[in-house]
């Protein structure tokens, strides 16, 4: 066909104005400007309240980080949004609840060695409970992976996603049965008493019955424990992924499955290990979340699970530091939105954030550019 004979395209009126990406960038700029302005106003209005919100956000962010790591690892390795991950988190919370409230497992060192310092006894006991819920969650995740996901590994991705949704429902409503967990809210029994400190010219212990002095910032031992435990687990995970042979295999499988298989890596086993490690972190996260918010119910895992997934996307799915940082941002965004926009809108904020990230930076903060579409 002779192109020269075709009529020339009439230039579109106003093409110079609407072409390019600037309207979208402008829109994003406006949204960001409104957020920054709102935050600045609120910081100037009450700096201590703002810092207090940041601390609350930190607590939430670290819990999200523990869940988000499992999401990002599993997604990085099998490209599956593991909906059931949030419910594994719920199971972790319930296991620790029963271990503490029914079996008093957090007191075992004190009972075994009478005369042991109560603080040391509770510390060792609490760690035992946490390890127990991590192990239970890991075993459960491997069972789920073997029975539900493995047969679908070569099926379309969406079939696996629907299966994951099914597993998630099953765990929730199975847990809601009377003889399994409970259909209603349960008040969580904390293994240790809550201590609160306030910062006002130095750090002081807030005595029982004492109200917080004006202009002070408070934090509790729960916050400290959550941060310490999360950082410790993160360190362990990093060492595991970077330094061990299994960790190396995980990275290899995530990078290129067929080649990893050719190199003699047991792909199936590696995937199971990934699920187990992710679920163990989620189990620990579930316990910490329950300690922080002291109320558990069978559907408690859904929303934190989704938010942790969003955090993983925000940080760049497949990237461990990304998931961690994304979760911290998520925690801050949620508490700040709850404090300064409107409390019921905090769930909506998370998803708005997700949509904006996916649109403007689909690979997240730390993600690698998509190599090929799976």
């Amino acid at each position, binding site marked *: 066909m002779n192109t020269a004979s075709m009529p020339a395209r009439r230039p579109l009126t106003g093409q110079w104005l609407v072409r390019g*990406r600037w309207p*979208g960038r402008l829109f994003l700029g406006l949204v960001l400007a409104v957020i920054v302005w709102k935050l600045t106003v609120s910081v100037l209005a009450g700096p201590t309240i703002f810092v207090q919100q940041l601390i609350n956000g930190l607590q939430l962010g670290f819990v999200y980080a523990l869940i988000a790591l499992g999401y990002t690892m599993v997604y990085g390795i099998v490209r599956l949004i593991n909906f059931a991950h949030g419910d594994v988190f719920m199971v972790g919370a319930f296991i620790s609840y029963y271990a503490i409230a029914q079996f008093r497992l957090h007191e075992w060192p004190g009972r075994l060695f009478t005369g042991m310092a109560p603080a040391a006894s509770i510390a060792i006991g609490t760690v035992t409970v946490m390890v127990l819920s991590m192990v239970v969650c890991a075993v459960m995740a491997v069972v789920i992976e073997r029975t539900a996901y493995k047969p679908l590994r070569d099926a379309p991705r969406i079939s696996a996603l629907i299966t994951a949704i099914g597993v998630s429902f099953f765990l929730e409503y199975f847990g809601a049965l009377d003889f399994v967990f409970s259909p209603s809210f349960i008040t969580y029994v904390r293994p240790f008493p809550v201590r609160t400190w306030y910062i006002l010219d130095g750090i002081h212990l807030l005595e029982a019955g004492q109200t917080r002095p004006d202009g002070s910032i408070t934090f509790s031992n729960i916050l400290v424990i959550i941060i310490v435990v999360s950082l410790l687990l993160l360190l362990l995970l990093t060492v595991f992924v970077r330094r061990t042979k299994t960790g190396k295999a995980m990275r290899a499988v995530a990078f290129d499955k067929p080649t990893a298989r050719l190199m003699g890596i047991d792909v199936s086993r590696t995937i199971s290990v990934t699920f187990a490690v992710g679920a163990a972190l989620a189990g620990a996260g579930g316990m910490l979340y329950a300690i922080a918010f002291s109320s558990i119910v069978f559907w408690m895992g859904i929303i934190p699970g989704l938010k942790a997934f969003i955090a993983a996307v925000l940080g760049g799915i497949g990237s461990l530091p990304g998931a961690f940082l994304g979760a911290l941002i998520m925690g801050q965004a949620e508490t700040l939105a709850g404090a300064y926009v409107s409390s019921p809108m905090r769930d909506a904020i998370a998803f708005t954030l997700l949509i904006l990230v996916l649109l403007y930076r689909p690979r997240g903060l730390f993600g690698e550019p998509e190599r090929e579409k799976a």
Partner: protein
Amino acid sequence: MRLGFNRSTAVFMLGCAVVFAVFQFLFSAGILNDFWYTLVRIGAVMAIVSIGLNLIYGFNGQFSLGQWGFYAIGAYAAADITYRWTQLHNTSGLMVLLLAVLFSGLAILLLGKYLNQVRGLDAMSAFAIYLLFVVLAILLGASVARPLIAPTTALLNALPEAVSGQVVFFLAVSLGGLIAAEVSFMFGLPILTLGSDYFGIATLGFTIIIKVLLDNTDTMFGLTEMKGARGMVGIPKETNWFWVFFFLFVVVVVTRNILHSSTGRAIVSVREDETAAKAMGIDVAQMKTLTFVVGSLFAGLAGGLYAHTNGFLHPQNFNFIRSFDPMIIIVFGGLGSITGTVIASFAWALVLEGVLRIVLPEGFETWRFVVYPLLLLVMMLLRPKGLLGTYEIPFLRAALPKRRKRETNSTSGVAQAPVGTSTGEGG
């Protein structure tokens, strides 16, 4: 081309008429009581929602969990219109929404014609431009509507009460659908560019956001009649067997006609292989948007019908957990089967909500949601295409292309199709 009905069409129409008449008789004679009457209507409503979702996911391959959000939008919009008509005796809801929808729809259409020719505009920029104009159009429509409220109220009052109620109801349900469609267009504009599972999560987020907004309708938007988290009451119970049947019939026929057109084949080709579809000259983005909008339109219609079934709406009914219901229905009924969707919807309503509730002893009701996902898992492992697969009754089945005379051997015709078409239609 033969004129008139062919055999499958005649059988389908006759079958519909018989089903309608039989159920109408059963309900009006009181053989099926109110419990079953409600369930049948809910089943039909679910069928409409699920057909919309099947269009989006089953036929176009976009994994959407946002169907329930559009359903909620349709329900609340339609309920607001009829509530204002029956309780406040004016057409304020009807006229404002009608003109806002008309103006913004017009803005979208005109802008779409223009922006489609613009090169190098990314999705977010298009979204920003559309948003600006749609907001302006809605404001314009609302201000134009104000002076029209009094005359239209007088006009509708001149009609007999039964007739005006039905007219307002019909308009309300239709407008609910159109509003859902416009929202889905605006939302789909940026979202449809995402990959399949990200799209699923984003649409799930949409459903969650809608639920949160519905919880705060009275405090955040000043729509006091919706009563926020306490639930909206006082909606006239206008939805009867005729209306649900009518809308279901229209939806089935419209879906069938879309799918059998060249647009429909383009829609299905996007599901099969996006890259190949693009290579064949199909505007993939446009097909995705079209399917998403039509599917959401159906969800909105169904929402309107649902709102007028019980006369009561609560944000909890639009919890995002429920957005898995239509997903499960289409997975069972068959991804890409209208027949299967309709059957599965009625089965869902009548068996899961009806029979099991009666048959099972008191405490066993909670077991429903344990068995339900297990069935889903077994389905995904054994029959991932759904119970009926892509089976259709003859009327809904895509007509086979007319055999060309020159093709003597059918097998060689298929095998050589690429060569044959390139010589026949290329150039």
